[in-house]
């Protein structure tokens, strides 16, 4: 039911963990629905220099978290803001229909981390 890419990212997730002094942190989901994603970013000169994630959830939740970290590492925050949940799913060669809305929130978590970074910059 999952693509090979999903299974690869589930089995060998990239960038798992936390950053010690992140510039931004974003979290989506809740334990009720069974998925929580938390993303930590480091930003330097408008570029995401480091990114880590922690996820409680199903195979799709873990794989999309891993994929989004790979997609944006080294990218500008503007480029990162353009990434959507849909494009993350496409990069994984698709997700089963049932997973598209409940476990495909990694881009949302990333955007929240960027918003958090921007807020901190503004204050």
């Amino acid at each position, binding site marked *: 039911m*999952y693509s090979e890419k999903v*299974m690869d990212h*589930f*089995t060998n*997730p990239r960038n*798992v963990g*936390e950053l010690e002094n992140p510039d931004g942190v974003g*979290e989506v989901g*809740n*334990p*009720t*629905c*069974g*998925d*929580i*994603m*938390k993303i930590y970013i480091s930003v330097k000169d408008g570029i995401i220099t480091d990114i880590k994630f*922690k*996820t*409680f*959830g*199903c*195979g*799709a*939740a*873990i794989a999309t978290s891993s994929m989004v970290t790979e997609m944006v590492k080294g990218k500008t925050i503007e480029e990162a803001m353009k990434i959507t949940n849909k494009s993350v799913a496409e990069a994984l060669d698709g997700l089963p229909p*049932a*997973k598209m809305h*409940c*476990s495909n929130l990694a881009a949302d978590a990333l955007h929240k981390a960027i918003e958090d970074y921007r807020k901190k910059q503004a204050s």
Partner: protein
Amino acid sequence: MRKVYLDHSATTPVHPEVVKTINHYLTEAWGNPSSIHSFGREARKGLEEAREKVAALMGANPEEIVFTSGGTEADNMAVIGGAYAREKDGKHLITSQIEHHAVLDAFKYLEKQGFEVTYLPVDEDGLVRVEDLRNAIRDDTTLISIMHVNNEIGTIQPIEEIGAIAREKGILFHVDAVQSYGKIPVDVNKLNADMLTASSHKIYGPKGVGCLYIRKGVRIPSYTHGGGQEKKRRPGTENVPGIVGFGKAAEIAAQELEGEMKRLTALRDKLIKGIEERIPEIRVNGHRTKRLPGNANISFRYIEGESLLLSLDMKGIAASSGSACTSGSLDPSHVLLAIGLSHEIAHGSLRMTLGRDNTEEDIDYVLEVLPEIVERLRSMSPLYQRKETCKQKECYAHVQ
């Protein structure tokens, strides 16, 4: 890679002897049991022998057995047929919150047709409280349906007591015995059942066949119309290969029941104890002793069931979970919620159901592999991280 199948409550492999029996009725004795000639008579003979074997394993008379396409059809027949059979006496029905969907959804259908249904809660072990049942009974209550063994947590209900109350009040009593028939003793008279559902593929028989026991004298309407098969209660040419396979499976189950109960109880206890010793922050779901011999259901905090299943599958271990991701809905299992688990704990549940091919070595292998998998998934979980920095309750309040 070692393959360990721990999902026997989902389905079981067909016993080689059963395969032989089925094969004979596919290739040699393929007649229509309704035909008068020798081909038909041979098929009829096989069919009636199977009926005797299936009946014997539940202490019933063969003429009280109606073969169906499986447990779901039999449950629907019993619940819907039972409700309409007594419609003139009342429209109040009683079941429990933890029934299989084949029963629950039949009751939901009846609610739409104007019946009133009481869904009894269960305690934290998954047991129906007999007092609750007594209190729920009204003058217009006509049908009670309670499962013998729960398919997820393996809890064995006090069916004898419930049946005695139903009998005393003159209320029809149906028992969904899909998870108990052939695995623990089932006797329709001891259980005081008026109707009882059993399924073939849970006891090493083929899929697509089951039966409903209907006590002599109990009449329920039929919703299938056609020929006179199964005394008009379930018309249509009989699934002879499936039914004879079911009969053979019942015959073998009867011979092996006592030994398998002992063996599987020991293996199950070894598995549960082993997990308790090796992995912290778990919860054993279901009653500890009033429990199906082969059932272990455990919640692992901070992780989600589907991830656990995928990881186990990669190690050759097949199990199931009550998480939303595996139930096809947004909510985790209704059974786990009914025993009082929070959504988060319910999402992290793992059901392992043992069967005839499982060995001590299988359990050792699971106990070797599982702790690493749980540790890996926990290390990725933001909930687990929080636990180290704040008290659990505060953590959950924070993430809600």
